[in-house]
């Protein structure tokens, strides 16, 4: 479908730089920060960087990297001192684009699980949906409260050579990172209060409050009687820190699958005083592990019978089961069409050009130029199961060629978009590194986009992989009030 899209030539142009206009002059909105750094000098920055690391270490702000051991390795959250700053006008555009996208994707999900008008109208091929791993037949004709499927989304944005924001991934399943967005802000304000004095930065720390309100809004017994829990896979999950953080900030129980039990289609919490009814489950467990009766029978992370309780309307599940099909990477290519179809609007945010491996023409084109491509498995996330063309070895490329030919529906390819760059304080020097942005969107009574997000940085020079599981770092993200 993208035949004829010009392939980027390597080194044709420099990636967009967020901070510098050229090698020596900062962009206007970074000028106050830049002047401050120049005056403060290197020693002060070095000291502050140490303080920040120590604070994160002591507070146990960590994430877990999976390895061969059962437990994984717990690492301290990597944090860069210098904030990323987004001017108000730029943010307004992003916010409008994200709202539009989330509204359209929820209408799309409702349609897919009720009637499938979009397939009948020939906008999206039936095969693409039915072969998607995250299309859940068990969800057909279920009516989740208020027709909301993706209550929480974390959309990944990158910037092209001209600085235009593009959507890279929608992350509609169990996006993580919001706790780090808040921790970054807390650390930044504590370590560098003087930075804030020069800007009017919009707040992000009320996120848990917005979230709790959105969750209570879904309670089958009404918001006032809502018993809300966060469902975690457990302490060895990479985002366990975040699960605890959110439960604590919202003042609700953090439950594991074994803490919940379904009786008569009603979900209960096992407490020291017996069973207690649960109304809303913010689950950080993927669909396939959610209910061994409905999905993977060998799952010990889920709750047997919870899907029936959900179908009976006795409990709200957040995000709704089956939402993952809307961020399947093959469906992603159709999101601009989805927006036009349901809203009759022009998409505000563009996609990264995407090649479908099911299309023979696209496939041949991609396979002939694998070195300039990013290949992604359609139902994976977190940087797992992907091939970064420019950094790949011939064996890896041969391996992916074979995998694509064997199962084309499972892969998509995108030309390498050189992510924008920013300055980071690394080992005593200011150095440029690539980064992306993940803002968080809550769909409750209204759609709220928290002004900020998680800026992830590829800490290795030249690297384009920002996932923390692959050694990425992060920056505090400031959205300016004016």
């Amino acid at each position, binding site marked *: 479908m993208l035949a004829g899209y010009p392939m980027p030539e390597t080194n044709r142009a420099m990636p967009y730089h967020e901070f510098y206009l050229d090698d020596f002059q900062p962009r206007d909105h970074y000028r106050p920060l830049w002047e401050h750094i120049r005056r403060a000098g290197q020693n002060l920055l070095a000291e502050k960087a140490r303080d920040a690391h120590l604070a994160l270490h*002591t507070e146990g702000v960590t994430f877990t990297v999976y390895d061969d051991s059962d437990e994984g390795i717990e690492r301290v959250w990597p944090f860069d001192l210098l904030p990323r700053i987004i001017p108000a006008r730029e943010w307004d555009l992003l916010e409008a684009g994200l709202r539009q996208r989330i509204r359209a994707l929820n209408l799309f999900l409702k349609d897919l699980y009720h009637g499938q008008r979009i397939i009948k109208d020939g906008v999206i091929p039936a095969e693409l949906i039915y072969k998607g791993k995250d299309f859940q037949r068990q969800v057909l004709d279920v009516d989740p409260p208020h027709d909301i499927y993706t209550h929480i989304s974390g959309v990944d944005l990158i910037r092209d050579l001209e600085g235009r924001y593009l959507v890279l991934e929608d992350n509609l399943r169990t996006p993580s990172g919001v706790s780090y967005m808040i921790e970054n802000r807390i650390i930044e304000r504590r370590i560098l209060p003087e930075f804030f004095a020069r800007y009017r930065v919009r707040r992000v720390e009320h996120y848990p409050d917005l979230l709790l309100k959105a969750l209570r809004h879904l309670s089958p017994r009404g918001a006032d009687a809502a018993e809300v829990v966060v469902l975690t896979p457990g*302490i060895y999950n990479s985002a366990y820190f975040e699960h*605890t953080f959110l439960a604590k900030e919202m003042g609700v129980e953090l439950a*594991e699958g*074994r803490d919940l039990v379904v009786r008569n289609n009603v979900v*209960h919490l096992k*407490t020291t*005083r017996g069973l*207690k009814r649960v109304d809303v489950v913010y689950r950080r467990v993927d669909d396939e592990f959610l209910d061994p009766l409905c999905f993977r029978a060998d799952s010990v992370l889920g709750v047997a019978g919870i899907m029936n309780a959900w179908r009976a309307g006795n409990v709200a599940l957040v995000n709704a089961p089956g939402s993952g099909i809307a961020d399947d990477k093959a469906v992603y290519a159709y999101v601009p069409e989805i927006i036009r179809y349901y809203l009759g609007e022009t998409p505000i945010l563009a996609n990264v050009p995407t090649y479908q491996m099911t299309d023979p023409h696209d496939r041949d084109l991609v396979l002939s130029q694998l070195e300039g491509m990013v290949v992604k498995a359609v139902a994976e996330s977190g940087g797992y199961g992907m091939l970064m063309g420019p950094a790949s070895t011939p064996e890896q490329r041969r391996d992916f060629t074979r995998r694509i030919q064997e199962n084309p529906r499972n892969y998509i390819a995108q030309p390498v978009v050189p992510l924008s760059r920013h300055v980071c304080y690394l080992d005593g020097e200011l150095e440029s590194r690539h980064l992306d942005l993940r803002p968080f969107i809550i769909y409750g009574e209204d759609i709220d986009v928290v002004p900020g997000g998680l800026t992830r940085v590829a800490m290795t020079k030249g690297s384009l992989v920002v996932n923390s599981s692959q050694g990425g770092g992060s920056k505090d993200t400031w959205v300016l009030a004016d």
Partner: protein
Amino acid sequence: MLSRIAESIYWMSRFLERTDNTARLLDINLNHLLEANDAGAEELQWAPLLHIVAGNEVYQRIFPDGTVTGARMIRYMVQEKGNSGSIYAALKGARENARVARDRISKEMWEALNEFWLQVDGHVTHRLSPERESAFFKHVRAEVARFHGLTVSTMLRGDAFSFYLLGTFLERADMTARILDVKYHRLLPDLDLVGSPLDYYQWGALLKSLSGFEAYRRHYHGGIRPLDVVDLVVFSRHFPRSLHFAVDRMTQAIQEIGTSQTDCAVCRTLERLSALLAAREAEEVVREGLHEFLTEFLDQLSTLHASLQNEYFEAHLGMEQCAT
């Protein structure tokens, strides 16, 4: 509260108390060696510690020849990952459980425990050198004390706090009873030497390991007498490391939590423990056999632990009715 979280808080405090007790035992044993000139063979000094922590089996596995030396015991009780009572393993257990219950303990408590763990985790990679041993044990005790202080001053009172008390005092009572049992046995042949310098050092060391030396001095004026030591360590209702004090605190904690059981085994066990302590005096107990008395006490503690498991940590089993 969530059963699993209640259990984690209970184990967090038990493991932390174990960390503290191990540091106390080792520190006092070391100091005693330094001071007592008739301390006897090295093995005689260190072997009782193995009995106290019921560690013979694991020790045999790690040191198949079975010889007990001071250096080995320090390694076994400080760093040995295979020994669940070692400072390393117990603290790791405390921290893992705190991590599970992180949303129910205060930020200050979590940070103190996490920081403590990070230090000890760093220590364990290199051997503890003899000149730093004592400072290390002192540090461990200070960190545990800091945690308890922060808990008392920052933790919300409620079920979670009560489970913290239950874990702390059950472990403390258990360890105190074991220490007394082993030490008393070891000291028994010396009963003729009441009032001798040896007695002073041996019983003095025991009191010091329980932070009770000064309290003892203030309260009893007849010198260091085994009967009076038993009176303080078992029967005193005012000494924070005595058995009676621990049973009182646990009884209060259970009253605070309340019970949803019609027939409360936890309450019954606590009543039995109180009865065991209430009607006796040190002299009577020592005459009838301190060892038998302490064995009965330790058995009741095991029953208490099992009942907590049944009635609180697995309260949902066999219950159809929904609590509100």
